[in-house]
C-alpha cells in the first residue's frame, strides 16, 4: 500500500436536507483500503443517514460520493452494489419467509450475475450452494440453513444480515451497529468476524457503532458526526481526547454505552 493510492471511497461535501432540517451537512471524508473506520456520534447525529447517502437509499441534496474515483452520486442502489458496495442494515432487513440458505443464496447469485436466468434450477447449482454454505458457516448459522429466516432469534437474524453482506464478496463493507441488540455470548462471533475481515488488507470497512470497547478494539480511525456535521476525524486516541468530542459525544450519555 502506497501513500499515493486513491481512496476507495470518498465523499465530497455530502449534504441532505429534509425540508429545513439538514441531516447530513457538508461531510467530506476519505476511506482507504485496508482500514476500518468507526463512525460515531449521538443519536440523531446523521450516522445512518450518512450511510444511506453512500449506499444510495437516500439521494444527496448536494455534494458527491465517489467509489474508486467513479462518481456514484446519482446511481441507483443496485448499481452501487454491483460496483462494490456491500451493506448490512441496522434494523434487520431480511427475506423473512425464505429459508436462511435461500437468503444467502440470493446474495451469492446476485454476485454471480445470473438473476435473469430462467432455465436453471436454482437449488441445483452446486457452486451457489457451496458458497452460500461457506458464508453461513462463517457467521455460525450453518446448522440453521433450512430454518425460515423470520423464526431465527434476533441474534441469528443479525448474523444472517452480516452473512448477506459478506456473500456479495465486495471490498467496501458497511456495518450499521452490527452488534446492536445481540446477547453477550453472540457478540464475540460478530466481532471475531470483523477482525477477520479487517485482516484482509483489500477490504475497506465502515462501521457505525456505539460501544466504546468495540470501537477501541477494532477502529483504525474514528469519524465523529454531530448534528449532521463532521466534527472530528482521526486516530481513535486523538479523536477521543479532543475537547469537541468530549463535549459533543462523550459528554452526552456516554455512560449508556460503556
Amino acid at each position, binding site marked *: 500500500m502506497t501513500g499515493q493510492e486513491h481512496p476507495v471511497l470518498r465523499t465530497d461535501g455530502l449534504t441532505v436536507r429534509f425540508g429545513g432540517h439538514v441531516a447530513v451537512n457538508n461531510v467530506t471524508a476519505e476511506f482507504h483500503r485496508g482500514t476500518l473506520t468507526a463512525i460515531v456520534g449521538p443519536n440523531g447525529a446523521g450516522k445512518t443517514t450518512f450511510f444511506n447517502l453512500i*449506499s444510495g*437509499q437516500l439521494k444527496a441534496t448536494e455534494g458527491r460520493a465517489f467509489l474508486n474515483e467513479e462518481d456514484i452520486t446519482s446511481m*441507483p*442502489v*443496485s*448499481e452501487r*452494489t*454491483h460496483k462494490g458496495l456491500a*451493506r448490512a*442494515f441496522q434494523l434487520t*432487513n*431480511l*427475506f*423473512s*419467509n*425464505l429459508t436462511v440458505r*435461500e437468503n444467502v*443464496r*440470493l*446474495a451469492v*447469485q*446476485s*454476485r454471480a450475475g*445470473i*438473476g*435473469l*436466468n*430462467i*432455465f*436453471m*434450477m*436454482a*437449488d*441445483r*447449482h452446486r457452486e*451457489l450452494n457451496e458458497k452460500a454454505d461457506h458464508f453461513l458457516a462463517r457467521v455460525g448459522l450453518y446448522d440453521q440453513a433450512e430454518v425460515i429466516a423470520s423464526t431465527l432469534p434476533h441474534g441469528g437474524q443479525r448474523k444472517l444480515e452480516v452473512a*448477506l453482506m459478506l456473500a*456479495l464478496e465486495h471490498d467496501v463493507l458497511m456495518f450499521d451497529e452490527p452488534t446492536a441488540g445481540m446477547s453477550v455470548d453472540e457478540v464475540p462471533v460478530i466481532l471475531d468476524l470483523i477482525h477477520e475481515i479487517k485482516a484482509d488488507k483489500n477490504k475497506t470497512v465502515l462501521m457505525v457503532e456505539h460501544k466504546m470497547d468495540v470501537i477501541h478494539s477494532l477502529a483504525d480511525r474514528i469519524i465523529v458526526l454531530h448534528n449532521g456535521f463532521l466534527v472530528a476525524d482521526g486516530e481513535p486516541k486523538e479523536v477521543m481526547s479532543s475537547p469537541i468530542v468530549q463535549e459533543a459525544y462523550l459528554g452526552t450519555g456516554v455512560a449508556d454505552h460503556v
Partner: protein
Amino acid sequence: MFSYIFSGDFPRSKLLTLLLVVIVVGLVLTPWLFPGSRSMETAMRIAIFIVLVASYDLLLGYTGIVSFAHTMFFGIGAYGVAITLNEMGRGYDAIFIGTALGFVGSVLLAFLIGLFSLRVKAIFFAMVTLAVASAFTLLVSQLYQFTGGEDGLTYSIPRELSPAFKLMKDKVFGVSINGKLVLYYCILFASFGLFLFMLRVVNSPFGRVLQAIRENEFRAEAIGYRTVIYRTATNCLAAGMAALAGSLMAIWLKYTGPDTTLSLNIMVDILLMVVIGGMGTLYGAVIGSTLFIMAQNYLQELMKVASDQFSAMGLPLLPDLIHPDRWLLWFGILFILSVYFFPTGIVGRLRKAKT
C-alpha cells in the same frame, strides 16, 4: 428425471400429490371416463385456466404485483387467433401467425405498461392496469369490423381438428377417434407444457429474485437486483403466458368474444382461483382452477339432486334452501369460508398439515 420435469419443486404433501394425480389423470382420461361434449368443455376450460391462473400467480403470488390487466392479455392471445382465422380462413398458418402476434403483442404491451408504471406504488400500478384493461375492452367493442364487437367472432379451425375428421373407423372403448379428440390432447399437453415451463421459471435463479422482491424489495435492491427490471420481466412473462392460454382457448371454442376473454368477471375468477388454491405456489393454480370451474359447472346439478332428495324425504325448508336457483349464493358462501379458513390457500393448508 421427475425432479428435472418438476424442477425439483414437488407438491411436498401426500394428499396434495394425490389430488394433483387425480386431476391430471382425470383430465387425460376425460374423453373416456366422462364421455360427452360438456365434460370435455369443462376439462379444457380447467386445463387452459391452469395456465392462465398459474401465470397470474407469477405476478401476485411470487412477485407481489397486483394487476387487473391479466384478462386483457388473455384476450389479446384469443383475439390474435380469432382475427387471423377469421381473415385468413381455416389454416394452420393462421393459427400460428395469430398465436405469435398475440404473444408478441401482449409482451410488448406488458413491457410498455411496466416501463411507465412499475416504478410507482403497487396500488397505482393496479389502477393503471385496470384503466388500460377497460380501455382495451372498449377498443375491442368499437373495432367491430375486426373483432365482431360485442358479438365476438365465430370461425372455423382446420378440418383435421374438427369432429367431422375421423382418424379411425371404429370407436375405441366407446369414444370415436376424431379431430376434436386430437385437438383436445394437443391443447391439454400444451397446457401441461406451459405449466411445467412456469414451474421451472419460479424455481430458477430468476424465480428466487421474484420471491426476494415480494419479501423485501428494499433489500433485494440493496443486494444488487435492479428490481424494476425484474418486475417488468415478470410482467412480460405473465402476459405472454396469458396470451398463449388465450390462443388455446380461442382455438378450442372456435368463438372469441368479450365475455369469454376480456370481462372483468373472468379477472375476478382468476383472482379467486389463485387465492383459493394458494398464492405463491403454482400447484395452487391447478387446485384452484379445478375446484372453481367444477363448482361453477356442477354445483347447480349437485344441489338439484340434493334438493330433490330432501324434498322427497319430506324435510321442511332444507329443499328450498338448497334449491338449484340459489347456487350462486352457496358458491359465494363456499368461497368466503375457504378464504376464511385457508388464508394460505388449499395448498398452503395441505403443506402445513404435513409438517
